[in-house]
């Protein structure tokens, strides 16, 4: 039991003078009498040594002690956990399911211990419990329900490969829960440092419990992989993160789909930080890159593998352009994309996107489309490189490497590229087709304008346009967990576990999913956090509603009344 006003407990010191005064007052006064003969008979009949007589003699003292004790307790405002917990309350338990929770510095893992704690919190709740997981967002597992159901759900949780959002985003996510009027929120996490302002969600007591002890870890956190033009070799780099203070070498190997393992040149990590390692050409289209090192330098084996898989289906892009248009040359620059001339959106094989010179037919809006329309000014000759030349960007087919905001409206990275070819972004639109977002863009550029021949940026613009149209439709070599393209592919709950996952609607082909979050490779435990003073005060105020102090005060008054009545009755 704790007290809101513990200082009032000093009132118990009043008992000293009360007890002393009692014994001083009860010292018998000497009274002469003519004879004690009759009084001795009275004493014999009273039987003063009986328990009842001794009790009656001490009754007033006992009553005063009880009354003072009750009054002091009432003033001290006791907070009795079992009393308060018996009151109906709403508790939210949030369990971090990010990849870093799989670290094994706590046995068997951070996640296992946090999950046990979540089960315990669910079971011990006095009222309703809601269970959420924290990955890239807050995901409800159980809405407010009774404790056993929540505990059962918590016990069945598994860890994920998501990245924990930033602390600021976490605060925004928590504030979204304010509408549920929770009394308590328990956030079970490992690396999160939550800068909670003092008056943050004042009506809710928020506690952050940290699971984790050290940060020694190495991880494969990214890869820039692409197939060569023939589609036979995998080329590119991998990003390796190290939190180990000393320089060391980590092993790297290639595990093929059939399970065979081929060692690769070791990765040298001279200091902590992110390192980019160039891979030798790998004669596979599907496999796992694995990092290996000693256990003391690798706390989280979950981030040591990088999956990749070529889904094997090249995109088909329809071209609505005259025969001699520059658009028809795209096939030579991007052999992994199939370009087919068409005058309709309904072609065979089915199209994944549609490029057009001029306006597009209405039925094309179910496909990602880009329409090139004459721009406001011509480009000067000599400003355009022959785009059939050997420029590295012409081999560009790695959509992951493309700037994600290349053609987004109003965003600076896209607009300069269009302006560089003397064009303008006329319009951009996203429609929903069968619940999936479908992008459309209108660019005020005439690619066949002779003035743009040799323009350095025109091929880049065309590549970026294709990447923009195809990024959410064409499976990539590897997706990070939570990527929008996964949601588009799965049309629902996309996998959050690293590995190969069958392509929806095409079980013969797989999609590679990885963590790709350097922040999750950093295992530095955060700091636990107790409720702010404002939250504690609000909590105490709520507890006071069920605090027994009014009852204690009433009991003290009743005891005093009873003592007065007894005194009057006896005297």
């Amino acid at each position, binding site marked *: 039991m704790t007290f809101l006003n513990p200082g009032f407990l000093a009132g118990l010191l009043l008992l000293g003078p009360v007890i002393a005064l009692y014994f001083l*007052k009860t010292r*018998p*006064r000497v*009274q*002469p*009498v*003519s004879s*004690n003969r009759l009084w001795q008979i*009275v004493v014999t009949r009273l039987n*003063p040594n009986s328990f009842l007589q001794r009790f009656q003699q001490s009754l007033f003292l006992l009553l005063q002690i009880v009354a003072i004790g009750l009054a002091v307790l009432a003033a001290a405002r006791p907070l009795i956990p079992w009393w308060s917990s018996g009151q109906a309350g709403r508790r939210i338990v949030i369990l971090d399911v990010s990849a870093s929770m799989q670290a094994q510095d706590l046995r068997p893992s951070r996640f296992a211990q946090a999950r046990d704690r979540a089960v315990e919190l669910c079971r011990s709740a006095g009222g309703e419990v809601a269970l959420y997981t924290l990955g890239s967002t807050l995901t409800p597992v159980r809405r407010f329900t009774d404790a056993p159901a929540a505990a059962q759900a918590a016990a069945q949780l598994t860890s994920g490969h998501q990245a924990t959002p930033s602390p600021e985003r976490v605060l925004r996510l928590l504030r979204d829960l304010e509408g549920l009027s929770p009394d308590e929120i328990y956030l079970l996490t490992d690396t999160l440092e939550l800068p909670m302002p003092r008056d943050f969600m004042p009506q809710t007591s928020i506690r952050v419990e940290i699971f984790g002890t050290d940060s020694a870890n190495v991880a494969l956190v990214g890869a820039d992989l692409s197939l060569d033009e023939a589609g036979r070799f995998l080329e590119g780099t991998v990003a390796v993160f190290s939190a180990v203070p000393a320089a060391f070498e980590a092993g790297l190997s290639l595990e093929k789909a059939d399970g065979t393992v081929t060692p690769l040149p070791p990765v040298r990590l001279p200091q902590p930080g992110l390192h980019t390692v160039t891979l030798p050409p790998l004669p596979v289209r599907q496999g796992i890159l694995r990092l290996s090192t000693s256990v003391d330098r690798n706390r989280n084996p979950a981030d040591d593998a990088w999956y990749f898989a070529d889904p094997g289906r090249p995109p088909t892009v329809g071209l609505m352009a005259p025969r001699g248009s520059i658009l028809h040359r795209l096939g030579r620059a991007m052999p992994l994309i199939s370009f087919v001339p068409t005058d309709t959106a309904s072609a065979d094989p089915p199209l994944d996107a549609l490029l057009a010179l001029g306006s597009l037919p209405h039925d094309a809006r179910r496909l990602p489309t880009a329409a090139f329309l004459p721009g406001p000014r011509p480009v000067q000759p000599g400003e355009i490189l022959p785009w059939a030349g050997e420029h590295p960007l012409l081999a560009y087919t790695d959509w992951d490497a493309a700037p994600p905001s290349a053609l987004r409206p109003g965003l600076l990275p896209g607009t300069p590229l269009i302006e560089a070819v003397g064009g303008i972004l006329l319009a951009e639109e996203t429609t929903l087709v069968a619940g999936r977002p479908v992008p459309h863009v209108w660019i005020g550029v005439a690619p066949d304008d002779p003035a743009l021949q040799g323009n350095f940026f025109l091929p880049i613009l065309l590549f970026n346009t294709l990447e923009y149209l195809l990024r959410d439709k064409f499976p990539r070599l590897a997706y990070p967990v939570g990527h929008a393209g996964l949601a588009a592919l799965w049309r629902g709950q996309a996998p959050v576990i690293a590995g190969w996952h069958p392509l929806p609607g095409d079980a013969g082909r797989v999609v590679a999913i990885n963590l790709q979050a350097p922040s999750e490779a950093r295992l530095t435990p955060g700091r636990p956090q107790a409720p702010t003073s404002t939250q504690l005060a609000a909590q105490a105020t709520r507890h006071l509603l069920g605090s027994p102090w009014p009852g204690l005060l009433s009991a003290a008054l009743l005891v005093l009344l009873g003592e007065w009545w007894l005194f009057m009755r006896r005297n």
Partner: protein
Amino acid sequence: MLFDLKFFKSLKLLSIIAKRHFRGEKIGHRRSPNRGSSAEFAEYKEYLPGDDLRFIDWNLYARLDRLYIKKFHNEEELNVSILLDASQSMAFGTPTKFDHARKIAAAIAYIALQHHDHARLYTFSQSLDPSSEGGFRRGHIHRLMGFLEKSAPAGRTPSFDEVITRFLLKNRRPGVVFLLTDALFGEDLYRGLQRLAHRRFETNLVQILSPEEMTPDLAGPLELVDAEDQSRVRLTINNQVLTLYEEVLRETIDELKGFLHRQGMRYHQSLTTAPFESTLLTLFEGAAGALPA
């Protein structure tokens, strides 16, 4: 001053009342209840255990189915003995029980002497103190008063049985005894009274009590100290205890009354706050034939 003018005026009045109450009796002479060959029948008296069976009137018994004895007159002087409790307990109260008892003793002695009876006055505390014995005759009333004026209560609770034993040694001839005491003796009192009854003394016990003893005005934790033996009793006094005390007092008085009645003795109670005259009048009414006329 204990015996003032007012007191003497009261004495004269009491004497007249006593005389009027026992009108026809010869002054200076008293009919003795002793039997003699020329004894003259005086009255019937209800039979009490210990009475002489020879004087039972069997004719009256046949008629009334109750036993009565005949009392005869015998001309002789009546010995009036006054036993005054002078133990320390008699110093209790305001006015003190001793002062009240002295007035009663003086009144009784005065009336007896006015009628030429012989009066003896004894005070007793630890025991019957021979030095306090005073035998007085008519004309000696002032000596008697002076003796009482000088008396003071002192000493521990007397062995009443021993007191009576000494009294009986000095007074072989039965008479009338007025025992003025607070009667806080216990079993010892009853033994002494039985001796008096056995020796045919007509005994009147006047229990002198103060209002503080009848209804103690006490409360709270007290250590009661006995005025005589300094014994101590610790007690927390409240309404319950006071009620119990009054119950014990009442039982003690009832027990004493019952004993005295069985012994053919008379009980009178006199509170120190009541006028001594009322005690005397009560004595007159209850002691017909015993009080000197």
